[in-house]
């Protein structure tokens, strides 16, 4: 069977599975729709959280980023897992005890203010839509490469699938579909990694293989360091980011993860406070399965790619791959434009090296090299990896299904928090407080449908800044929602005025700094280079400063304003105690 038929079969079967689950789990109440009736087992919820969390970015892009950043890629690994520690200890159990449906609702109640709730809704919608755009782009890439259909067709199919189970099933449908999607995506990720690890080192466990000796001799990471430094790149295990920037980016990603509404809301679905704690642990177990494999995939992909192009001593003319001799996967990915070769010195061979390293360029020009000739998009490393390693077609088909599962599961979770913040926080909470539960449920479904259309549009006309947008989403979550929720639980003294001022300060500062360098919607006002950055902190890491400002402003303003009223003091007392969470079922 050829690859295309096989891919259609595997992806089709996975879609049929998601549909079947959606039919079984139709939501009947707003409780079902928003928080799956609060009856999800903690391990099941952990698995669903993992699928919800691991997006197209985690599945498709992360290992590729690590492959090219080396040690610098650690920010994603530590940042996107360490956030769960904050979530488990600082937010999840207390928000579960609070026991209502949405994050803005908590902020509105704790800060006794509709304005605070609206600020939170605005943050949430902005964060979630920027995130969803990235997912839709992921679906488009996978479809166009593996199904050989246009990106548009791929998008419409993807939107249709999400529509069925998010709109009908709500949180209940999404939760159980995500469990299936987790199984698909984790097998799609680990199976090729196991094969490749075994091929390279004889050890099938990728996490161990990464630190093992190659079958051709020498430790893999040592060989990789030699390989890439010989081509003028920074050593793989050193990277090229400054310590302060790595520190700040990791902090943003951790706090941002803990502050992402679609992740937080998952812990509203378990029956007890105790379950919210352990469920976070289970979520991280399932996430760690992928996140500890990813650095191995990154290192192995960099090794395989480099040795394919540079198959002998650097500087010997015949050691560079002849373009005519390029492997099949190379040709297939050239068609997508994500892999490109330009024969700058006209020798018919591929030179892949760091032409931004002046000392090395001097050496290279002595060999007749006239610039790096290969451009590789980060996003193809995971998808092309099984092809680079010559794995059987069914593995490649599985990877396609996994990429789609990762994108769809995250998109569905995001669309749900968007729709619930519109129907519950905006309509029920502010604009039309008198609607019945049934009307609210209908409004929620309509909002989800509209949100899917907007997300589809964003995927169709992807804003050119998807990568920057990720920095945006995490920076804003870290600088606005995370501190507001944290102070809401752990401080009795932060007031309405303090919280609003803090959120706005964090939001505006972070947004302003990112816009200044990245210029989304407007031209950048300064070049995005380290020399221009404040204290050497990149726009990706600036949310950590925004977070600090949020805390400082909130505490300062709270000192000057009247203390929170008595019923809010009591609310704080109640959410700090686990006993009585069950009664929150019916409110």
């Amino acid at each position, binding site marked *: 069977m050829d690859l295309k038929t096989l891919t259609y079969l595997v992806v089709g079967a996975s879609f049929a599975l998601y549909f079947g689950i959606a039919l079984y789990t139709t939501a009947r109440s707003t409780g079902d729709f928003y928080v799956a009736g609060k009856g999800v087992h903690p391990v099941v919820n952990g698995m669903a959280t993992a699928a919800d969390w691991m997006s197209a970015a985690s599945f498709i892009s992360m290992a590729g980023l690590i492959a090219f950043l080396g040690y610098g890629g*650690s920010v994603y690994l530590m940042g996107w897992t360490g956030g769960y520690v904050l979530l488990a200890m600082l937010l999840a159990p207390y928000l579960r005890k609070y026991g209502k449906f949405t994050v803005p609702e908590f902020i509105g109640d704790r800060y006794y203010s509709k304005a605070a709730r609206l600020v939170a809704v605005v943050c949430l919608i902005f964060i979630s839509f920027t995130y969803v755009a990235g997912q839709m782009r992921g679906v488009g890439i996978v479809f166009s490469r593996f199904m050989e259909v246009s990106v548009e067709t791929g998008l419409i199919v993807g939107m249709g699938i999400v529509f069925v189970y998010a709109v009908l099933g709500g949180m209940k449908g999404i939760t159980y579909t995500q469990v299936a999607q987790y199984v698909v995506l984790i097998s799609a990720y680990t199976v090729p990694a196991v094969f490749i690890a075994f091929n390279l080192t004889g050890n099938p466990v990728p996490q161990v293989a990464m630190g093992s000796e190659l079958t051709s001799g020498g430790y893999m990471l040592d060989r990789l360091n030699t390989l890439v430094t010989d081509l003028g790149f920074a050593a793989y295990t050193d990277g090229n980011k400054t310590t302060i920037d790595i520190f700040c980016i990791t902090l943003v990603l951790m706090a941002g993860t803990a502050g992402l509404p679609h992740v937080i809301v998952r812990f509203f679905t378990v029956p007890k406070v105790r379950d919210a704690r352990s469920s976070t642990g289970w979520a991280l177990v399932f996430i760690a399965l992928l996140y500890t494999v990813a650095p191995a995939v990154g290192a192995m992909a960099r090794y395989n790619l480099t040795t394919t192009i540079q198959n002998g001593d650097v500087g010997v003319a015949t050691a560079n791959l002849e373009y005519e001799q390029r492997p099949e996967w190379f040709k297939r990915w050239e068609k997508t434009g994500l892999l490109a070769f330009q024969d700058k010195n006209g020798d018919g061979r591929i030179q892949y090296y760091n032409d931004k390293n002046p000392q090395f360029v001097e050496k290279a020009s002595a060999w007749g090299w006239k610039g790096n000739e290969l451009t590789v998009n980060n996003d193809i490393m995971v998808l092309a990896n099984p092809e680079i390693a010559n794995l059987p077609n069914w593995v490649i088909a599985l990877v396609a299904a996994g990429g789609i599962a990762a994108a769809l599961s995250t998109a569905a979770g995001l669309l749900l928090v968007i729709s619930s913040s519109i129907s519950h926080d905006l309509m029920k909470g502010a604009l039309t407080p008198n609607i019945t539960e049934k009307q609210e449920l209908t409004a929620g479904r309509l909002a989800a449908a509209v949100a899917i259309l907007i997300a589809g549009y964003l995927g169709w006309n992807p804003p050119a800044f998807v990568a920057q947008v990720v920095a945006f989403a995490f920076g804003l979550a870290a600088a606005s929602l995370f501190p507001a929720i944290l102070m809401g639980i752990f401080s009795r003294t932060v007031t309405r005025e303090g919280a609003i001022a803090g959120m706005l300060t964090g939001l505006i500062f972070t947004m302003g700094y990112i816009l200044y360098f990245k210029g989304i919607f407007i031209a950048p006002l300064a070049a995005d280079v380290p020399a221009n950055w404040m204290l050497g902190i990149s726009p990706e890491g600036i949310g950590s400063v925004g977070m600090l400002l949020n805390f400082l402003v909130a505490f300062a303003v709270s000192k000057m304003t009247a203390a929170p009223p008595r019923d809010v003091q009591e609310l704080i007392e109640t959410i700090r105690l686990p006993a009585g969470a069950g009664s929150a079922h019916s409110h």
Partner: protein
Amino acid sequence: MTANSADSARATQRNSYWQASLRLIMLCLVIWFVVSYGFGILLVDQLNAINLGGFKLGFWFAQQGSIYVFVALIFFYAMRMNVIDRQHGVHED
């Protein structure tokens, strides 16, 4: 016992429960900070002088070790919190 003293006894109990929770959270967050920001970032160069198989130790903490510690840390926290809940009589049924 009068209603008032029962109230204040409950307040003291709540307070000691909250203090115990905070102590546990602080302990866990110190470990969380040390393995990631400490070993994985600030001390990475010093630790990289030590080898763990084919890994440099600092690099291993940044890309593998910190994640394993995070997982263990959350389960340790969840377990200890269950004990603290019971000790202070605020556990769920």
